[in-house]
């Protein structure tokens, strides 16, 4: 394995959690709901995934537990914002604060324990192709899942009736309601999907990226995922490009640190956050790019008229 290949493999590892969390949030936002609790759902996915995998010794059960952790928190968010019509921004923040606290509490007895690593699923023959083989066909199941999710969401959102309903609910909930669609139910489903994806992203962190439990191990990745959705202008394919670019920035910092140019490590560690801000500024400043795809009802509460 040469150096370039190693770099690409680590970039994919760093990008996958961002991609998983962001694709879920993209669907949630397409239905008109802004869930700022991604960080909280992700960290819950991480701790549940680690705990279940450690207890059973099976990383796949860990993945399921991670999904459960994310969905459970998302369900609370859905009850509050949809059934009780609370402010989505505030509720999302509450979700993040709760998730960070709860995961710390659950994970306390798992700190410092050796984790169960999710194994690579090498596809026979294909993975032996020089150079690209290990990159494309020698990954673990969650990397394949993240790529599949990109294509699946693109297809569902833009080529199917379900996607049309989701987008119409997100663009004009009053019209969608008048047409007879159950706005609240659609949004519930999309919020839960977002939670499941965030849970997967968290489980990836604690099972594949660094197979251990560290408090607050998401380190702002949930927020970066939220920024990625804006960066992607709500298009899954652009989201994938963005996620891999961000993953590359994350890894670049580590490599420069290892080479050591006398740059303080703290400056390199803050690079992903600086880049996130720059990316947000570039995209948000471009009105044509953002306005076309921004779900028109994003963040607005909907209470059916009776």
């Amino acid at each position, binding site marked *: 394995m040469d150096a370039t290949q190693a770099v690409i493999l680590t970039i994919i590892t760093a990008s996958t959690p961002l991609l998983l969390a962001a694709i879920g949030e993209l669907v949630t936002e397409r239905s008109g709901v802004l869930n700022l609790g991604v960080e909280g759902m992700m960290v819950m996915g991480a701790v549940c995934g680690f705990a279940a995998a450690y207890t059973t010794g099976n990383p796949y059960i860990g993945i399921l537990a991670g999904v459960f952790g994310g969905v459970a928190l998302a369900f609370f968010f859905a009850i509050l914002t949809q059934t*009780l019509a609370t402010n989505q921004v505030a509720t999302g923040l509450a979700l993040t604060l709760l998730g960070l606290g709860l995961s710390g509490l659950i994970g306390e007895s798992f700190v410092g324990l050796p984790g169960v690593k999710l194994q690579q699923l090498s596809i026979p023959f294909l993975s032996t192709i020089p150079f690209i083989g290990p990159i494309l066909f020698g990954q673990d199941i969650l990397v394949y899942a993240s790529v599949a999710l990109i294509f699946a969401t693109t297809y569902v959102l833009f080529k199917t009736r379900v996607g049309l309903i989701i987008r119409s609910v997100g663009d004009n909930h009053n019209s969608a309601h008048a047409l007879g669609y159950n706005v609240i139910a659609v949004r519930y489903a999309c919020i839960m999907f977002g939670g499941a994806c965030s849970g997967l992203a968290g489980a990836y962190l604690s099972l594949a990226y660094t197979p251990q439990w560290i408090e607050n191990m998401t380190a702002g990745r949930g927020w970066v995922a939220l920024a990625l959705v804006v960066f992607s202008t709500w298009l899954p394919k652009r989201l994938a490009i963005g996620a891999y670019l961000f993953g590359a920035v994350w890894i670049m910092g580590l490599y420069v640190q290892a080479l050591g140019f006398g740059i303080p490590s*703290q400056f390199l560690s803050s690079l992903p956050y600086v880049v996130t801000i720059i990316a947000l500024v570039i995209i948000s400043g471009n009105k044509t790019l953002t306005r076309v795809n921004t779900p028109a009802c994003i963040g607005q509460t909907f209470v059916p008229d009776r």
Partner: protein
Amino acid sequence: MKLVLEKRSEHSEFMTLMSPLLAIALTVFTGAIIFAIQGLNPFEALYVYFIEPLTSMWSLEEVFVKAAPLILIGAGLSVCYMANVWNIGAEGQLTMGAIVGSIVPIVFTSWQSPLTLVAMIALGALGGALYGAIPAFLKNRFNANEILTSLMLVYIAQLFLDWVVRGPWKDPKGFNFPQSIAFEGWQLFPTLGDGRVHIGIILAVIAVVILTVLMSRTLKGFEILVIGNSPRAGRFAGFSRKKIVWFCLLLSGGLAGIAGIGEVAGPSGQLQPTVSPGYGFTAIIVAFLGRLNPIGVLFAGVMLAITYIGGEAAQIDLGVSDKTAQVFQGILLFFILACDTLILYRIKMLTSTKQQSVAAE
């Protein structure tokens, strides 16, 4: 069975006052369940958590030490949220205030006069305000979401602080510990009496008074209310949304900065890699629990401070994890938001299918 919201003709004054109390009651009840699950006597645990902090002079002082930054930040955030400006990066503004305010004692070590303290507080406010100005500028100039930019700036500020105390500002005689020189004399916030309570709590009360007047008696306060509640009406009235964004972020950033220098020149007495145990985030809960009203924030700040002290007490007395406090705080915010629904809506429970079909019409 189905829950349905029915809009009240006008918002309920009664529920506005009751909602936070109801939320606290529900949080305490949930807390009892969590303690019971952990195999503790829920009554004993709740006593240790919520009552014991108020029973000894020492812990009561601690409550006010912790309430000071929470009130300072929470008051600023409540104005922000009132205007629909979502500054969630107060933790970063606090950190920057701590760093900039510390320039005085660390660079001009020998300057000892009451003005030293004034300069530290002023620079703390300036540092926080300038750091708050970044999301304001990006929002107004590039339309970049202030939630995400202000939050990203928290991580950047914390890493910058880490570098400062391990690099240029490390105490040369500090045995290589990552901390600055210890502040002394006028470089420290004077305490009230012999205890640990410092003038931060007085600054917090002053801030609350000023913001109360600002919100209820001035045109600026009115502009904030209008822009927050109805941006369209605000535009017709000729109020500038951009100016409000600037105002809110500079104000809340400045107050968070004062809270930051208060932590450094108060309880810790030197700059360390961590300035606060997440006051900037807890203050978000303070702002909501206080009804986005500065006077409400005063009480909410004390309430949240109690959960910090109670958390420490429970850890020592009962062996409960110190993370429990954070869980309580998160649950509390959840319940506040849920209970606030009752201000604008009545909740109706439809049981039979007949009622449901009537409701659907």
